[in-house]
Each structure stands twice: as structure tokens, then as C-alpha cells.
């Protein structure tokens, strides 16, 4: 059977499937449950400096099994309360990556220090959050902002720092390169796509916040393109995120350049058992295609002959 163990940014994972941030991540028991169900690691809910209730409902809309639109508004209990949840997860043996969000580089650095002290094996920076000044654009929307934030964080923590890249840009690879210059140990791509749903009978947006983020199988080709382009530009490892529902999806991301993967929306559609299924199926698929180890396949699609430059 193919070996699924991988090492990303200095972190050893028993398999490449991480629980994505925003799913099952508000309570330590849920993080522990995802670990026990077979996730290779768990990324926490994005935690901020203070408790946030998030936006009023409706905060979610689904499109059969191909898409999920959410505008939760980063509800979280805040960095003062959250460490007890991480402790519950760690006691269960989980490999925990702490996700944080903030409005500016200084706040990111302060939060990162607090999160790093909880025993997480790495940090993931959620750069798809609004500017502190309320610009309405994502805080990690320009390479300059990304480099500034990542540099401020890597200056104050010694755990590996993963920068989560937004797809709501015309150059995701430039954002990833900026993260690398700032000292990121890895990048994860992608976060959700900016999207909206409208109720034609009520003549209003469905979500209370209006615009939200689209995830699920519909965004896989977009996530893959970002990983593809990022792989061409950076030397740090990439964690692929976006619409992974099958082992084949996972392998597409790996062949595009990803070393590990995150799964979020599919947990919603299928339940937490998705992790066990994906690991089993990926093992089988690697066997079928002649790979002894997953990392033999990383970026392999780039080596195909006559690929145009991109």
C-alpha cells in the first residue's frame, strides 16, 4: 500500500488530509473528533484578538453538492478563551495548526505569538479578512501587505508559518511569493471565492452580509490553477485547498504542486468520515497509478512535455 505520510514545513503528518479552517473547529472536542476520524491534522477556526459573534443568519447557502456559499463573519471566542479548546484537541493526540486573522500586521504578530504558545505545530494566517481600517478588501490582497504581515509574524514566532492565499486576485502566485519573501514556511491555497446569492422572491441577497465566499467542488479548477501558478513561482511547499471530494481531486492538487491538502466543504456534504474514505481511496489510487509514495507525485504534471509557459 502506498505511503501517505508527508512532511510539510517541518511538520510530519500521518496523511496529507488536513481539516480546513472554519469546519468543526470552534470546539476542542470537534477538533479531536476530526482527528479520531482520521484527519492528518486539524486547522482551527480562525481566531482573532477578541470574541466575535459573526454575522447574523442566514450565513450559508448550498448548491446541491457542488458548492457552498458562506458569510459567517469569522465568529470565534477570541484568543483568550480559545487555548482551552486547543488543549482538549492536543490531549486527544491531534496535530493542531492554529489559524489566526487580524486587521493589520501588528495585530497579526501579537495574535501569532499568543497562538504559538498554545502548543500548535504551525500557524496558518487567514489573510482573507477585512482590513482593520474597513477598506472592504482582503487584508492579504496585495503582495506588499502579505509580505509585511508574514514578516511581522515570522519575526516573533519560531513555529512554521503558513500563509493562506486568497483567490480573489489576478495574481495568486505574486501573493505566494510575497509570503515566501516574508519568511513563510509554506502557503496554502485557496481560500473561498468572492460570491453572492440573491433570492428573487424576496428581492434581496440570501446571506445577511450579502457577499460571501464560495467553496466546494465548483472551485476546484480555480484552486488548481492557483496551485499550478504558485508552484511555478515559489520554492516553499504548497498545501492545496478547494473542492477536494475524491482521491482523484487530491492527486490533481498534488500533481499541480501541492504537498498536502485541506478538506472543508466535503465534511459538510458527507460527514467527518470523509477523511477515512479519502485516505483509503488515495492509497488505492497511488497503487493503481504506480506510485509508492505520495510525494513522488508532487508537481509531476509540470514535467509533462510541451507545456506552455505560465
Amino acid at each position, binding site marked *: 500500500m502506498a505511503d501517505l505520510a508527508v512532511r510539510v514545513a517541518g511538520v510530519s503528518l500521518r496523511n496529507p488530509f488536513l481539516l480546513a479552517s*472554519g*469546519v*468543526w*473547529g*470552534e*470546539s476542542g*472536542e*470537534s477538533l*479531536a*473528533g476530526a482527528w479520531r476520524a482520521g484527519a492528518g491534522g486539524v486547522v482551527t*477556526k480562525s481566531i482573532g484578538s477578541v*470574541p*466575535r*459573534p*459573526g454575522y*447574523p*443568519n*442566514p*450565513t*450559508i*447557502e*448550498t448548491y446541491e453538492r457542488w458548492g*457552498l456559499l*458562506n458569510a*459567517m463573519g469569522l*465568529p*470565534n*471566542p*477570541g484568543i483568550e*478563551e480559545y487555548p482551552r479548546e486547543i488543549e482538549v484537541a492536543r490531549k486527544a493526540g491531534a496535530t493542531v495548526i492554529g489559524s489566526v486573522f487580524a486587521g493589520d500586521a501588528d495585530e497579526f504578530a501579537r495574535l501569532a505569538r499568543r497562538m504559538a504558545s498554545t502548543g500548535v505545530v504551525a500557524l496558518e494566517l487567514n489573510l482573507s479578512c477585512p482590513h482593520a481600517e474597513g477598506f472592504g478588501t482582503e487584508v492579504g490582497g496585495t503582495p506588499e501587505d502579505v509580505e509585511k504581515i508574514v514578516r511581522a509574524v515570522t519575526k516573533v514566532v519560531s513555529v512554521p508559518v503558513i500563509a493562506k492565499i486568497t483567490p480573489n486576485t489576478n495574481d495568486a502566485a505574486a501573493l505566494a511569493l510575497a509570503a515566501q519573501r516574508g519568511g513563510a514556511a509554506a502557503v496554502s491555497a485557496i481560500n473561498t471565492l468572492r460570491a453572492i446569492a440573491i*433570492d428573487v*422572491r*424576496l428581492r*434581496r441577497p*440570501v446571506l*445577511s452580509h450579502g457577499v460571501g465566499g464560495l467553496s466546494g467542488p465548483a472551485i476546484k479548477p480555480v484552486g488548481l490553477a492557483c496551485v499550478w501558478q504558485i508552484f511555478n513561482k515559489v520554492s516553499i511547499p504548497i498545501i492545496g485547498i478547494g473542492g477536494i471530494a475524491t482521491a482523484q481531486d487530491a492527486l490533481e492538487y498534488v500533481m499541480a504542486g501541492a504537498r498536502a491538502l485541506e478538506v*472543508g*466543504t466535503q*465534511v*459538510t456534504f458527507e*460527514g467527518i468520515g470523509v477523511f477515512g474514505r479519502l485516505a483509503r481511496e488515495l492509497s488505492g489510487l497511488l497503487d493503481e497509478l504506480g506510485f509508492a509514495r505520495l510525494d513522488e507525485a508532487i508537481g509531476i504534471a509540470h514535467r509533462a512535455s510541451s507545456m506552455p509557459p505560465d
Partner: protein
Amino acid sequence: MRSVVAVTDRVVETPSTVTLRFPYPASADPGQFVMVWIPGDDEIPMSLSYTDGPVKGVTIKAMGGTSRRVQSIHEGAPVGIRGPYGNRFDLSPRRILIVSGGSGAAVLAPAAERARTAGSSVTVALGATRAPELLFKERFRSMGASVEVATDDGSEGTKGFVTAVAERLLESEAFDAVWTCGPEVMMKKVIVAASPWSVPVFCSMERHMKCALGMCDACALGPYHVCVDGPVFPAARLEKVPDFGVFHRDSSGRRVPF
């Protein structure tokens, strides 16, 4: 995902509870809930108080901002409905004790109706702060359930908590199951009251909900999620929840004591 429907009936059940009826043909069973969207306001979970037929119902007690505003929805107003979600009461027990506090009768009454239709005997310990707040007392009586009342102020029935009435009933009669819904601290007491008699207890639980799909973790209850593993939980599962009856979570996910 949501059906936008017009409220067809608004019924004042007690000074603090209102029933809204709306067309929603999806099949539903007692225990299950829907997410009700008040356009421009909020979308909150509500147990179905009427589960059978093409017109469903929810019964709301005014607890806070949103539930108060939900109560004032008039007939003809549009609401968005999605669901039903969650699990259902197991209707196989033949002798059922129902213990209802707060607005718990909203979820227990349709369950009792199904049990009576199946020929099971249903005894109800119905509690409220005062007589006018006894929710669905007549509905329980008309389905042939035996109803014993408790009010905090003694304005009807036994003066005191409904759990005391439940204890007395458990001592004097044999039951195959206890179904309970109401304040969590009350439900915890019901489990304690039933344990000497080895009768399984099923609690209809409540937590903040956002997605109601098992994703966001807002309704995390120990290792479970109320939206997909509940709302109906047997006492055996609640034993795995250290926070049961002690802590719930606010909308940010912070633990708050009851």
C-alpha cells in the same frame, strides 16, 4: 435551499408563545426542526410543533430579540424555511412519560400525537411558571394523554417544579421511555429522577445554530452536533457531554454557564 412561503395562521397559545403555520410539504417527524428566515432579520432554528401534512407549524416563546420579532410576524408575511433537519423521537415505546417545561411542549406535543396514533399510552407532566403559560395542555388532553400539571406559583395543579411531578409518576407507574424538553437544568434533573427506574430518557436539546448542516460547530455538544446528531439525545449520549446542564456556548463560541 430555502422555500419562501407565506405564514397562513398566527395563533396565540399562551401570553408568551405564538404558533405560526405555513405551507411546507416536505415530510417531517416529531423531534425535527426547521431553520426559519425572517427576511432582513435573522434565521433561527425552531422545532416543528406541527409535523404532519402539507401545513407545518412552529411555536415560539419570546426569549430574546429575534424570537420576540418572530412572534409579531403577521399572517401573509413571507418567511424562508429550510429543513427539516435533525433526528426524530423513536416512537416504539408503548408507555411514555413526557416531562415538559418552558416551551418544551412545542416539540413534545407532536411526538405525543404520533405515539397516541400508534396506540401507546402517554402521560404528561406539564410545567409552567403560572397557569396561563401551560402550553398545549388542551392539545395533550384531546389526544387522550393523561396530563398532570405543575406551576411555580401554584395557580394550577401542584405548586412547584414539574420534575417533582415526574418523580411521583415514575414511582407510581411503569414507563418504557421518558421524553423531555425544557430548560437544560430541568432535563438533567429528569434524567436523575428516572435513573432508579432504569427507564431510558430522551432529551430534545438546544444550542445556537448557524449552518444547521454539521459544518460550523456553533451547536457543538461534547462530541456531537445538535443539528445532525440531535436534537433528540438519549441520556446515555449526554453522559459523554461534561458541559450538559452546566455550560452552553454563545454565538462567538465562548462557553457560558447556565
